C-alpha cells in the first residue's frame, strides 16, 4: 500500500513569488524573513521524500464558473497547465506545466464516489495559484506528478465545514489503501482571516488577528472539535469576507487526523494576512523534523 509521506497545510500568498525574486530597491523589507521561513518549510517536504503530490486548492473563478460549479472536483489528466493571465498581471506568477498522476486520480475518483462523495472530475484542468503557490514554495523544481483536488470555498452555496473535514479523512484513508509502493505527500492550502473587496482589506495585519491566533492553534493540534464547534458557513464571514478558505485548512486537519499535533508549525504576520505553515509526518512515514 502507498505511504502517506507527509501532510502539509499552509496559506497560499500569491505575492510570495514576486517578493522572493525581487532584488535591490524592489525587494520588500519583509522578503528575507519570509523567504527563510519558506525555505525551512520546504525542507519539511524534502525530508518526506515524496513521489507524488495530492494538491488541495480552490479555483479562483478561472476555469470553474457559476454556470457549472462543482463543490469538490478531482483532476484526472496527464498534464496540467498552470496560472492564468490575470495572475501573471496582478502577481507576476509564471506559466507552468505540471505532470499528473492519472492512476492515483482514477483511484481517488472511483473510491471517493463509492464511499459517498459524488466528486466531479476534469480531464483538462488549468490549475491556478492555489496549487502553484505551494509548488513554488514547497517544490519549486515542479518535478513531481500531482493530483489536484479542488474545493468550492468561493461561491455560495458551499458545502458545510464538516463536509470538508470528512473529505480530508476520506482522502487520507483512500491514499493509505492505494495499492502502490509510492510515497504520497498530501498538501493543501487555504486562508486564515482574509478580506478581499471589503473595508478591512490590505490592512497592516490580517483582518482578524484573534481568529488567526485561534485558528493556528486549532490547526497545530488538529483540534477538530473546537474548530467545528466555532466555525460555520455563517460565522466565517465575520473574520473577513474571504475567510471561507479556512475550510481547506479544516479539510487538511481531516487528512492529518483529529488531535494529531503537527510536527512543524511556523507563521508570519504580514500586511494583509497571517501566513502559516504546518507539516505532519504520519506514524510509519519515516519522516522527522530534526534532520
Amino acid at each position: 500500500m502507498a505511504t502517506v509521506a507527509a501532510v502539509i497545510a499552509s496559506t497560499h500568498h500569491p505575492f510570495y513569488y514576486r517578493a522572493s525574486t525581487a532584488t535591490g530597491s524592489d525587494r520588500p523589507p519583509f522578503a528575507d524573513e519570509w523567504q527563510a521561513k519558506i525555505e525551512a518549510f520546504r525542507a519539511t517536504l524534502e525530508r518526506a521524500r515524496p513521489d507524488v503530490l495530492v494538491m488541495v486548492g480552490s479555483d479562483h473563478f478561472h476555469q470553474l464558473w457559476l454556470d457549472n460549479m462543482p463543490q469538490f472536483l478531482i483532476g484526472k489528466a496527464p498534464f496540467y497547465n498552470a496560472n492564468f493571465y490575470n495572475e501573471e498581471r496582478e502577481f507576476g506568477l509564471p506559466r507552468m506545466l505540471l505532470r499528473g498522476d492519472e492512476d492515483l486520480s482514477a483511484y481517488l475518483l472511483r473510491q471517493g464516489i463509492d464511499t459517498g462523495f459524488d466528486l466531479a472530475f476534469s480531464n483538462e484542468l488549468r490549475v491556478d495559484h492555489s496549487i502553484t503557490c505551494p509548488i513554488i514554495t514547497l517544490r519549486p523544481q515542479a518535478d513531481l506528478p500531482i493530483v489536484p483536488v479542488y474545493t468550492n470555498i468561493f461561491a455560495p452555496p458551499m458545502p458545510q465545514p464538516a463536509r470538508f473535514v470528512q473529505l480530508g479523512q476520506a482522502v487520507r484513508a483512500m491514499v493509505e489503501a492505494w495499492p502502490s509502493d509510492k510515497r504520497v505527500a498530501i498538501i493543501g492550502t487555504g486562508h486564515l482571516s482574509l478580506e478581499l473587496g471589503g473595508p478591512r482589506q490590505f490592512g497592516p495585519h490580517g483582518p482578524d488577528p484573534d481568529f488567526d491566533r485561534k485558528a493556528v492553534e486549532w490547526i497545530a493540534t488538529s483540534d477538530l472539535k473546537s474548530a467545528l464547534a466555532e466555525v460555520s458557513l455563517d460565522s466565517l464571514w465575520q473574520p473577513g469576507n474571504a475567510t471561507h478558505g479556512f475550510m481547506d485548512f479544516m479539510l487538511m486537519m481531516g487528512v492529518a487526523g483529529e488531535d494529531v499535533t503537527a510536527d512543524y508549525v511556523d507563521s508570519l504576520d504580514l500586511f494583509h494576512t497571517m501566513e502559516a505553515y504546518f507539516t505532519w509526518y504520519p506514524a510509519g512515514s519515516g519522516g522527522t523534523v530534526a534532520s
Partner: protein
Amino acid sequence: MSKYLINKFIFTVDRDPDLVERYRADPEGTVAWWESEQAGLILNCPGPERSTWLAFDETERNALVTHDYVALLELGAHNFLVLTLFIALFERDYVEPLGFQREFAARLSHWSLPYPDIAT
C-alpha cells in the same frame, strides 16, 4: 436584478487583456456592446445556443458604465471578482504601492457586517 450577470461581465472582461483596456477607455460602449453581443453566450456552448433572457437593469448598467465598484458590491457582485478587475483597471494610476487597494477599502468604510449577500 442579476448578480449573476454582473459577475459574468466582470469575469469575462477580467480574463481578456484587450477587454480590460477597452472597458477602462470606453466603459459605456463596452457595456452596451457586451450586453447586446456577449451577455447570452454560455461559455461552454456554441454561439447560437445562447441564453435569450439575460439583461441588466438600469441600476446595474449604470454602476458598470460609471466604474462604480462600491455600487457593484452593494448590488451583491462577488467581492473577489470586483477587486481583481478594478485593480487591473486602476492600480496603475496610483503612485504608492497598494494605494488603490487602500482607497478601495476606505470607500467601503461605511460598511458593517453583514456585508451584501453575494450568493447567486
